[in-house]
C-alpha cells in the first residue's frame, strides 16, 4: 500500500519537472504581448481601475484623488521598498499590477527580461513636456518602455545636534570607525544592494558600477563591518527614524529627507548632503507591465503625471526634482533653488548613475545579503 503512495508522489514529481522543463518559469508575464506589440490606446482612454505598484510616500494623495475624479476610475496603490523586491514580485508572474516605478538600471533589466509593455505615444501626448536631458536616457534611448517620473540624489541625512555643525561631509560618517563609532547604534542605511554597496565602493574610490570581484568584496567587507554600527537597514523608514531620534545619521533619498524636514518644528536641526567622495543620481520611471490588466488606463495615468500642473504638484509634495520642463514654472521656488534637490554643475560632476551590470548584478545581491548578516 505504501508503494502506491510513493509511486504517486514520484509521478507527480516527474510531472512537475516535465512541465516547462529546461525553460525559465513563465507566468503570464512571459507569454503575453511580445516586444513590438504595443497596446493601441487613445489619449484619455480607460479600461478599468488602475493598479499602481510604487515606492512608499511617492505620490500626493490629492493627486491620486484628482486622477480618480478626472477619469472616473479607482487607483489602488501597493508599495515596495526596493527595485529588487518589485522585480521579484513581477517576475513570479501573475503579479496583477498595471504601472510600476522602476529606477534607471532596473528599467534596462526589465526590458531585457521582457517584462514591460511598449508604450503607445499617441496616448501620451504630454511626453513633449519632458526636459531635453531626459529624452534619451542610456537605459531606454527612445523612451519606448518608460517615461521619467522623478529624479534625485542619494546621500546622508544628519541630526546636527549629534554630529555638530561642521561635520565631515563624507561616507566616513558610516564607514570610518573613527568618525562613526561615537554614533554606533544610531545609523541607518538603505536596504538596497546597489545603493549601499555603491556607497562603500565610492568611499573606497571605485566606480559605483564596478564589475570587479575584488572591489566588490572589499566594499562588502566594509559594509559588513558597518552593520555592527547600524540600528537598522531601511528603505522607507530612514527619515522617520531620523526625526524620531532613533538615528542621527541616515542613508536615504533627497526628497524623503526634505519632505520630513519641512514638517518638523525646527528644520534647522537637520541637514542633507551628498558626500564629497561621490554619490548616486537616479531617475525613477513609470513603466507598464507586459501583462497589465488595464493598459489603457495605465497610459492615461502616465500622461496625467506628465501634465505640467500635475508634475509640479507631484514635486511640490515629494520634494524630489521633476524631469518635466513644463512643470517648472509651477514648482515652488524653494525647491527649484535648493542645490541639494536640483544639483548644480559642481555637484553633478560628483554624481554617478547606477547602471545595470548584466550578469554581475547577482553578485551585488549576494554580497549584500552576506554583509547584512
Amino acid at each position: 500500500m505504501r508503494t502506491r503512495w510513493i509511486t504517486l508522489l514520484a509521478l507527480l514529481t516527474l510531472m512537475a519537472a516535465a512541465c516547462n522543463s529546461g525553460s525559465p518559469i513563465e507566468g503570464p508575464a512571459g507569454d503575453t504581448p511580445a516586444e513590438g506589440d504595443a497596446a493601441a490606446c487613445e489619449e484619455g482612454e480607460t479600461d478599468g481601475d488602475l493598479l499602481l505598484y510604487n515606492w512608499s510616500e511617492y505620490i500626493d494623495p490629492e493627486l491620486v484623488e484628482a486622477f480618480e475624479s478626472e477619469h472616473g476610475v479607482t487607483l489602488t496603490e501597493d508599495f515596495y521598498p526596493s527595485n529588487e523586491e518589485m522585480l521579484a514580485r513581477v517576475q513570479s508572474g501573475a503579479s496583477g499590477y498595471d504601472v510600476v516605478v522602476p529606477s534607471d538600471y532596473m528599467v534596462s533589466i526589465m526590458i531585457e527580461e521582457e517584462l514591460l509593455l511598449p508604450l503607445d505615444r499617441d496616448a501620451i501626448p504630454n511626453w513633449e513636456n519632458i526636459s531635453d536631458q531626459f529624452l534619451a536616457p542610456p537605459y531606454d534611448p527612445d523612451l519606448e518602455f518608460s517615461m521619467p517620473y522623478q529624479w534625485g540624489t542619494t546621500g546622508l541625512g544628519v541630526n546636527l545636534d549629534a554630529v555638530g555643525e561642521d561635520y565631515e561631509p563624507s561616507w566616513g560618517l558610516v564607514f570610518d570607525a573613527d568618525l562613526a563609532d561615537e554614533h554606533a547604534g544610531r545609523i541607518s542605511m538603505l536596504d538596497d544592494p546597489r545603493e549601499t554597496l555603491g556607497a562603500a565602493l565610492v568611499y573606497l574610490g571605485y566606480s559605483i558600477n564596478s564589475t570587479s570581484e575584488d572591489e566588490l568584496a572589499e566594499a562588502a567587507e566594509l559594509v559588513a563591518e558597518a552593520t555592527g554600527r547600524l540600528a537598522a537597514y531601511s528603505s522607507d523608514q530612514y527619515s522617520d527614524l531620523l526625526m524620531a531620534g532613533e538615528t542621527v545619521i541616515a542613508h536615504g533619498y533627497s526628497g524623503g529627507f526634505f519632505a520630513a524636514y519641512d514638517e518638523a518644528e525646527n528644520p534647522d536641526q537637520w541637514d542633507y548632503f551628498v558626500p564629497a567622495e561621490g554619490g548616486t543620481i537616479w531617475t525613477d520611471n513609470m513603466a507598464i507591465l507586459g501583462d497589465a490588466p488595464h493598459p489603457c488606463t495605465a497610459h492615461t495615468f502616465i500622461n496625467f503625471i506628465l501634465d505640467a500642473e500635475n508634475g509640479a504638484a507631484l514635486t511640490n509634495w515629494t520634494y524630489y526634482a521633476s524631469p518635466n520642463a513644463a512643470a517648472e514654472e509651477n514648482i515652488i521656488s524653494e525647491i527649484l533653488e535648493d542645490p541639494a534637490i536640483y544639483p548644480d554643475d559642481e555637484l553633478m560632476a560628483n554624481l554617478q548613475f547606477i547602471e545595470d551590470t548584466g550578469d554581475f548584478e547577482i553578485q551585488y545581491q549576494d554580497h549584500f545579503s552576506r554583509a547584512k548578516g
Partner: protein
Amino acid sequence: MSAPEVTRPRGLVERALEANTWLVFAFFYAPIVLLVILSFNDNRVVGTWTGASLRWYREMVGNRAVIGSLQNSLIVASISTIVATVLGTATALALERFRFRGRGVFDGLVYLPVIIPDVTMAVMMLLFFARAAALMHSSIGVSFGLGIPTIALSHVAFNISFVAIVVRARLGGLDPALEEAAADLYAGRWQVFRHVTLPLIMPGVLGGALLALTLSLDDVVITSFVSGPGSTTLPVYVFGLVRRGVTPLVNAVSTVMLLASMLLVLFSLLAQRRAQ
C-alpha cells in the same frame, strides 16, 4: 479538582507565586494598555505625547486602504472558516470513528499543517499558485492572478487541520455508548448523526471554528505571499504600515482590532458557559 488545603503552597512560596502571577499579568496587559493610550496621541511621532485627540480614528475611518483591507480580511476569514470547519469536522469524524485504507497516511497529513512553519507554508503556496497559473495559462488559456481566492484557499489549507484536531479531541472524550444507544433508537445513520453526535460535538466544532477564524484574521506571512494588488488584508496592511513608518494611525487601527478580537473571545466564552 482543586488542590486541598493541605497541599496548597504556603507562606513564602505562596506569596512568591502570587507576586509572579501579578507580574505576568502586568506583562501581558501593560503593552496593550499603552498601545491603546497612544492611539489618542495628537503628535505624529508615536513616542512623544503632545495631547489627546481623536484625529487618527477620524483618519482611519476615512482611509480607503484601511476599510478596504478590513473588508478583505472579513471576506477571507468567513469563507475560510466555514469551509475549513465543514471539511475539518468531516475529517475528524472520519479519522476518529472509522477504519479505512489510507487512514494512517491521512492521519499524518492532517497534522503537518500545524507543525509547518508559516514561512514554509507561504513559500509552498506561492510556488503552487505560480505553477498552477502558468499551467492553466498554457493549457486552457485562462489566466488568474493572486488575490482573495488564493488567500482563502491557503487559509483553508491550514485551518482544516486545526479544526480537525479540536473536533477530534472532543470526539475522543465522548462515550461511544451514547451513539450505540442512539443507533438502536433511530432509523438511519444520518439521524443518529444529526440528533446525537452533532449536538455532542458542537462545542468542539464551534471551538474549532473560532480557532480557524482567529488564525485567519491573524495571518501575515502566508497572506502577504499569496495576495495581489487590492487584496491586502488588515494585518498585512498594518504590517506594511509598521515597516514603512509608524504613526499613531497604526495604534488606532490596532486598538480597533484588539477590541474586536476581545469582544469575540468574551462572546464565545460566555456562549460556551451557557451551553454547559
